[in-house]
């Protein structure tokens, strides 16, 4: 994934730039200058769209300008050949692009590592050839190029010479920035950043990873296609060379230099690097060299780009406490979420709570075989409701493998895993999550550039009916839903005892102990019946282990939560768990009360190892 950190809440900065562009539009600048700024704004629309896919989702796309080409040609062909009005042409084009992007995207999002980069790069090469080829000749007139009919609507002349085109481009750029910002800062946007951090964690929190990736790809493609309208009107004539595949590299470079993952950065990059070459007007090659050098320097030394520099400088200038970065609280931050009196226990996920006696988890003869190695060998285990059950054993005994089976990350080769009366052995992760089974991870993959509250809200990803359209409409549309989720997240943070002052802090600024606690809050947010903890104590000093033990006991006592904790520290197990299962080489070698089990010689041997093979063991 692309290493650079994404930024939240950068809309004020983008709006400032748009305000500047508006001011510039009012000034009596001449036609040449006006044309340059319109061109820059068109590139800005494409760059902002791409930033969602490459900045927030962290996926490479070296062929994005092909969609601008598709947009420009399709709108112009519809208007000139089929003399369709401009608005229907734009909408039809965006629909067409969405379908095409869905097809190409379906393949691209499945590709690993740089497969996506290469596939999109080749797609742009293919499009360049198709535009110049003869299959689409009747539409694109291939090399002859396609003249763009001038656009006017009543008295407003949107053609290249009129000044209204400037405002059309500005309005579309404003729309693109708003919609993309909403997407990036919405629940769907946060899910993208979680996928960028770790796809498996996203899966366990109920995110349909491939669908999320595809919707981001289609969204950025549609925005790019929309950029085709102002671009085609400005240039007035479309030729395949205008959409040469190297433009896609230039577009991606603008993102890297402007500041990827911040929307405002993409805007800065696009505006500077479209206007600069035109203004320099010198020999084209010299300015191309300068651009390439700047791109390389930023890719190596400043992956956060110009926006990153500005953000850091701003942070130094104002010396805000290191915790709350530029992410000025704007909407759904802590201040807005008034903490209702802490609802007793994690709000029950619509009554999934089992009656007292029934078991939260029953595992019967669960076996897992990895290429000849029996990681789990007929493991049986029972977690009574509202109890803490520890799963212990030496390294490599199969503890995490068992957790993966219960949480759906791994499908057991044999045996049954029963949760709330249902065998979930075969169910996908988000279905198991919906049953109220939540888990944490050995290293708590929180999204580093999201605040604590935003991270915990991600835990509620699967629990509410959400739609992408409402996300795009922005906070006001999903205000009600946003506040409800905010409150549930706050309630979870309350329970695990994270002070409200820390809710705005970026996850990257938390200590390891704090991260583990937030990870638990994320797991239990939105109601959880069975909490699976994967070595919560690993990496913690003794000082931090005490409070964690108290937290688990409090969750069990006050909120009747059933917990299965994988742990190493025998002391921690004795202190917290009601019952223990000891695993060694994938087999259960002991079960029952912690103190009794720990005294069992076979357990000691498993832990302390054996001096001589088969030697008689002295107590």
């Amino acid at each position: 994934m692309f290493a650079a950190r994404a930024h939240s809440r950068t809309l004020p900065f983008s709006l400032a730039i748009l305000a500047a562009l508006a001011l510039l539009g009012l000034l009596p600048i001449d036609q040449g200058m006006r044309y340059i700024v319109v061109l820059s704004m068109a590139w800005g629309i494409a760059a902002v769209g791409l930033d969602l896919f490459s900045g927030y989702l962290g996926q490479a796309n070296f062929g994005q300008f092909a969609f601008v080409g598709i947009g420009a040609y399709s709108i112009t062909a519809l208007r000139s050949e089929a003399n369709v009005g401009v608005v229907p042409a734009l909408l039809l084009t965006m629909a067409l692009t969405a379908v095409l992007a869905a097809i190409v995207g379906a393949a691209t999002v499945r590709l690993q590592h740089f497969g996506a980069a290469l596939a999109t790069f080749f797609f742009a090469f293919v499009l360049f050839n198709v535009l110049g080829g003869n299959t689409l000749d009747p539409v694109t007139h291939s090399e002859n190029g396609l003249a763009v009919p001038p656009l006017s609507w009543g008295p407003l002349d949107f053609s290249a010479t009129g000044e209204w085109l400037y405002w059309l481009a500005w309005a579309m750029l404003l729309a693109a920035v708003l919609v993309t910002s909403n997407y990036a800062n919405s629940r769907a946007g946060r899910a993208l950043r979680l996928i960028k951090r770790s796809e498996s964690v996203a899966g366990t929190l109920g995110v349909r990873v491939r669908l999320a990736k595809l919707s981001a790809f289609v969204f950025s493609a549609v925005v790019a296609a929309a950029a085709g309208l102002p671009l085609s009107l400005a240039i007035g004539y479309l030729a395949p060379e205008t959409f040469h595949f190297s433009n896609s590299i230039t577009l991606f470079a603008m993102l890297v230099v402007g500041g990827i993952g911040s929307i405002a950065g993409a805007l800065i990059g696009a505006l500077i690097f479209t206007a600069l070459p035109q203004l320099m007007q010198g020999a084209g090659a010299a300015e191309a060299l300068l651009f390439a050098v700047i791109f390389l320097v930023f890719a190596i030394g400043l992956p956060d780009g110009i926006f990153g520099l500005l953000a850091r400088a701003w942070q130094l200038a104002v010396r805000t406490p290191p915790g709350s970065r530029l992410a000025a609280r704007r909407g759904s931050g802590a201040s807005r979420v008034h903490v209702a009196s802490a609802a007793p226990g994690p709000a029950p996920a619509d009554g999934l709570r089992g009656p007292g006696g029934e078991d939260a988890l029953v595992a019967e003869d669960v076996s897992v075989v990895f290429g000849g190695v029996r990681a789990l060998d007929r493991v049986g285990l029972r977690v009574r409701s509202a109890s803490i059950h520890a799963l212990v054993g030496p390294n490599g005994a199969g503890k995490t493998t068992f957790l993966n089976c219960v949480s759906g990350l791994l499908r057991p080769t044999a045996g049954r895993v029963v949760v709330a009366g249902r065998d979930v052995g075969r169910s996908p992760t988000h279905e198991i999550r919906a049953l109220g089974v939540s888990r944490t991870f050995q290293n708590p993959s929180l999204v580093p550039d999201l605040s604590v509250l935003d991270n915990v809200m991600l835990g509620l990803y699967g629990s509410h009916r959400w739609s992408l359209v409402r996300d795009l409409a922005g906070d006001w549309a999903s205000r009600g839903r946003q506040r409800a989720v905010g409150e549930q997240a706050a309630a979870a943070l309350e329970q695990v005892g994270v002070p409200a002052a820390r809710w705005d802090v970026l996850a990257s600024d938390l200590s390891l102990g704090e991260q583990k606690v937030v990870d638990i809050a994320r797991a239990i947010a939105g109601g959880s019946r069975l909490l699976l903890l994967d070595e919560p104590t690993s990496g913690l000093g003794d000082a931090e282990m005490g409070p964690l033990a108290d937290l688990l006991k409090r969750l069990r006592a006050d909120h009747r939560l059933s917990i299965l904790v994988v742990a190493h520290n025998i002391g921690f197990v004795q202190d917290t768990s009601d019952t223990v299962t000891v695993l060694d080489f994938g087999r259960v070698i002991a079960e029952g009360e912690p103190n009794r089990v720990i005294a069992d010689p076979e357990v000691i041997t498993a832990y302390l190892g054996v001096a001589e093979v088969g030697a008689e063991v002295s107590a």
Partner: protein
Amino acid sequence: MKRSFWLLSTAVAAVFVVAACGGSGTATSSGNGGATAPGVTSDTIQIGTTSALTGNVSGPATLTTNGAQAVFDKVNATGGIHGRKLKVNVLDDGYTAPKAVANARTFVDQPVFAVFGGYGTVPAQSIVPILEQAKVPYLFPYQGNPYPDTKYVFLMMPLYRNQTAAVIKEAIQKYGKGSVYALVGKTADTPQTVQVAQQATTDAGGKWLGYDEVNQGTTDYTPYVLRMKQAHPDFVLVSTTPTDCARYVTAMVAQGALPAKRILGLQTLATESFINAVPSEASDVLFAPGPNAAPSNKLAADCVATVHKYSPNTQVTMETLWGCGTAQVLVYALEKAGTNLTRDGLVKTLEGMHQIDAAPVLTPISFSASNHVGESSMYQFTSSGKQLASAGTMPIPDVKT
């Protein structure tokens, strides 16, 4: 914290605006001093040229621009035109539409009296509407696409489709009847070119074998050569960019698939860069029309001397002479248009030219209200031992399609 944040944003906005104004300041240079026409002052005539100084056609484009500049320097050195010096603002468009359009807009704003020269179809096609609307004369770009209903656009070389018909008729007359196969690049009016070629072949009693269309930047031309070889043509017509023509012909030699009689081409093949790029077996069977005489031809002597004197490190090739010739025509027209120079006056002067030898290196030039293509005949080119030779001329009648 929030209030001061907005402070930063507006500060950045202000900086951006100032920078932009500064930028725009330079773009609008001095307007026209109270002279007779935009771009003309008491002692200067401002001309604009947008040409592909970078990109994959930068070679020929730069040579045409330098050739013309030599003529303008000579005119300025010998007193200018009616006492006015010719100032040329040359901007690079890298053979891409967006840059060409930007340059055209700059010329309209500057303003320039007229736009002269330039290389290639794409830039020309993209700026004709802008210049026509701004009533700025656009004179003699190096390309053969028709712009029928334009008042301010004047072309020099005969249109591609007319060249195609003429070269086939002339070749069959000169080398005897035979079959014709064509390779056509996706240039401007590809469909017409093919139709015209087919018609010309049958009219001259030849046999039309078919054609292939190819995109620019093809890596390997062997498949196309194999298709052509199967047809065993006497003549092969090649009509695409110089680079792709050279690659196709080189592949023909490699596959031993040279045509029985001649390789025919348009003006792009009658250039040194093409002759040097292909094996001599191929260049020796070349037959193509050229808009201007070869450097070795005595008609080119005046231009060769001008270029050597005023642009010494510019190599004298077909493209250089084209630049020189078209510049001489411009100078001739400006002088004839008299002292109170207006754009419409220049148009009227040009349209009044009939069979004028304004530039010895070109063929006689005539324009009229209905015909804005200067040349109606071209030089016949063959090559032997990598030396271009122009022997006689051939008429290029207008083909009605």
